[in-house]
């Protein structure tokens, strides 16, 4: 067996995300590449939660429908995932909650006897899995020691009991792969990788109002140790979030905000102000299905045009849609730097799949980021915040700079920042806002704005964006297809994309929405695909599901 899939399921509130992460860490620690799909409804207790952890010796980004291990905390898990079982699937279940065929463990009883809280039943079932799969107890113990900060001893007690009560299943034994070159990679979510990217880029303030799927980025930032020197604020609403961000930017602090589509609706007023007042801010926009509240805890790619057009008026913006952790790490830093160099707002457009699912991060694959110094003021007076320059970029000074009167303004304004309606000045300021886009596009020319994967010489192309690039790459590898992903969406890298599509015979656009948002964007550049695959049920593509759909259209 070259790869393994493990599903763990139960009721919301039973700590299944944590259990999934433990399983992922165990497989990661063995030397596998790991992907974790976490599916949960929008509630705190009850309902059905599950994680699928897939482990393989190569780089992966998706799950498969079928699983090799099914770990069931309750009846629902067995019923809802019966279709995932094959002849060799090992079932480990909580025999205190359900009667089934397979390996039963009286988890409630074990937890009680070991003096552990109910939540430790997870530890028990994970230990049962380890025993069945022949994973050494030491590997499990090391993971528990890392992952369980409170009640470790009683959890270890539960783990030992459960481990000893299960007999290994020789046919399902998990053998560690050959030790990976370069060692074990970090395993984390897209939110964490993007957050680290922002921090590496010099972020000084993070402002957000909680909203799935970016709440965990807020939690990550707020939970950083003191040496982060990061100011984290959770204000009254997303309107305040955006305006606070602009206050930080005005004083010279590098700032990002986080939200999803609904919150970004409230932010667009301030986003347009950022455009007019030329204040840099990075918006971490995690997509989830709408309209309106929609499916709060699921995923989609429905805000491409919203991101590209949000806010009244015409101004330069940078929109990037990373598809994996390496791209997230790189482009979070790049968005911050480019925002400051051009004094424009940026949108880091991702989705629940990338934000909350677990992947490996291989920083060795990340290209070096060019330096983008922000233009600073040379001290000559009078200071003009909006001095007209050839590039459209005015030198930056911040309040308390000696002698400089720093005036920013959401009205049409002259070079000093004073309101004006004079037609000549109005024209000059509008042209200045747009001229900055030329420099931005030219800087981007030296960067990986379009990613190519799969079999690059193939005439059959999967053209996709965002997190959907992951499963597409895997399908590209298995079916021998080229995969092309425009990573930057504004300014649109037309030439680079056309270069990447050179020699294409058939182009299939794959995206997670109902109306073909990338396809519509491409039409404006006369890039017309031959077929399309669209998914809008909120769930990520399973590898086999996408493979079957691609076979159908090619």
């Amino acid at each position: 067996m070259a790869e393994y899939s493990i599903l763990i399921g139960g009721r919301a509130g039973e700590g299944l995300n944590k259990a999934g992460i433990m399983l992922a860490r165990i497989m990661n620690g063995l030397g596998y590449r790991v992907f974790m799909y976490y599916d949960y409804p929008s509630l705190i207790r009850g309902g059905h939660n599950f994680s699928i952890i897939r482990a393989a010796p190569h780089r992966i980004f998706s799950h498969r429908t079928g699983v090799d291990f099914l770990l069931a905390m309750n009846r629902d898990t067995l019923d809802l995932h019966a279709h995932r079982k094959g002849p060799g699937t090992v079932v480990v279940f909580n025999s205190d909650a359900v009667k089934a065929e397979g390996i039963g463990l009286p988890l409630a009883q074990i937890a009680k006897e070991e003096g552990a809280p109910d939540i430790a039943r997870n530890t028990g079932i994970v230990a049962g899995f380890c025993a069945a799969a022949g994973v050494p107890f030491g590997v499990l113990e090391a993971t528990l020691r890392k992952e369980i900060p409170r009640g470790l001893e009683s959890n270890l007690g539960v783990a030992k009991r459960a481990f000893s009560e299960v007999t290994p299943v020789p046919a399902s034994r998990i053998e560690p792969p050959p030790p990976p070159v370069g060692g074990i990679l970090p395993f984390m979510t897209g939110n964490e990788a993007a957050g680290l990217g922002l921090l590496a880029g010099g972020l000084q303030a993070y402002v957000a109002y909680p909203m799935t799927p970016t709440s965990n980025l807020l939690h990550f930032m707020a939970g950083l140790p003191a040496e982060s020197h990061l100011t984290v604020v959770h204000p009254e609403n997303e309107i305040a979030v955006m305006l606070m961000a602009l206050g930080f930017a005005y004083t010279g602090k590098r700032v990002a905000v986080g939200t999803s589509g609904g919150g970004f609706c409230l932010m667009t007023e301030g986003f347009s102000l950022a455009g007019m007042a030329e204040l840099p801010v990075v918006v971490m926009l995690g997509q989830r299905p709408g309209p309106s509240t929609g499916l709060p805890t699921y995923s989609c790619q429905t805000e491409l045009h919203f991101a590209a057009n949000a806010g009244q008026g015409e101004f330069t913006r940078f929109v990037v849609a990373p598809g994996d952790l390496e791209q997230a790490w790189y482009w979070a830093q790049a968005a911050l730097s480019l925002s400051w160099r051009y004094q424009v707002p940026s949108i880091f457009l991702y989705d629940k799949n990338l934000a909350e699912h677990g992947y490996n991060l291989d920083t060795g694959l990340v290209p070096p980021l060019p330096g983008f110094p922000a233009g600073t003021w040379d001290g000559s007076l009078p200071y003009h915040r909006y001095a007209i320059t050839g590039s459209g970029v005015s030198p930056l000074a911040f309040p308390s700079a000696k002698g400089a009167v720093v005036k920013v303004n959401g009205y049409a304004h002259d070079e000093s920042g004073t309101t004006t309606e004079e037609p000549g000045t109005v024209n000059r300021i509008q042209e200045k806002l747009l001229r900055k886009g030329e420099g931005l596009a030219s800087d981007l020319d030296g960067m990986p704005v379009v990613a190519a994967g799969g079999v690059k010489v193939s005439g059959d192309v999967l053209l996709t964006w965002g997190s959907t690039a992951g499963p597409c790459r895997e399908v590209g590898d298995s079916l021998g297809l080229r995969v092309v992903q425009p990573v930057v969406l504004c300014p649109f890298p037309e030439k680079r994309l056309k270069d990447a599509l050179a020699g294409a015979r058939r182009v299939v656009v794959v995206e997670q929405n109902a109306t073909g948002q990338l396809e519509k964007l491409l039409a404006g550049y006369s890039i017309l695909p031959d077929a399309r695959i669209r998914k809008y049920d909120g769930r990520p593509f399973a590898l086999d599901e996408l493979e079957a759909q691609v076979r159908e259209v090619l």
Partner: protein
Amino acid sequence: MNDRQLITDTQNTWCPGCGNFTIQHSLKAVLQDLEKAGTSLDDVVLVTGIGCHAKMADYLDINSFYSIHGRTLPVATAIKLANPALTVIVCAGDGDAYAEGLDHLIFAAKRNVDITLFIHNNRVYGLTTGQYTPTSPIGFKGRSTPQGTPEYPINPLELMFASGATFIARGYSRRQPLLKKTMAEAIRHKGFSFVDILQICATYFDVHDVYDKYVYELAGHDTHDPAKVMQKITEWDYNNPAPIGLGTFFEKDLPTFESRFPVQPAVPGDRKEMIRKILDSSR
């Protein structure tokens, strides 16, 4: 002023007789006093909303953030948080702060961020040509309510008291010396300072005769006794004729919002090491 005139040469477009002139000149005088007392005007920031009041950003030659309607306070809060050494002054209208941005007003008070808010309360929308605001009296005939507004006004002082503001005052544009004194006190106060400035709108709501008749300067008032404060605050409900107190109603010492955020510049080495540790712990 020596090297800075404070008033810009931008053409002033307030109506003749507008209460904004008094507020502007009071603020100018307060800034000059601040400078004499050792505060560099480079360290002062003015944030304005949208409305007649907001032209202050164009007319005063100091750092300014000409924000959007209702959104002064989040901007000002972040500026103070980012650089606590700055003196942050906010000018906002009654439509701005009491309608469009009411949520921000309550939170700024609740946080006790050390900024000063001057409300240019003319109790009418001027720039949009004469509609009722949250402090217009019931029955106010504006262009959106030709039959008279069916809403009672709010008492902003009462709202601020309930929200946790630590300095609450009222001024009147036709009582300039007292207004200037109150504005200076508000800026001096450490914490969220709120001054509701009754300002006549010469074009759409000129009630100076009413104000002139009813205003009086608070004297011998205990600004630290909540019961007495509440009694004074509710004396006039912004609707029915009643004595209108001017001056400082309430003061309280509380730690400020920004004092709870340690502000230190990030040390690049620390940051790198922290990122490395997080990556390692994720393996």
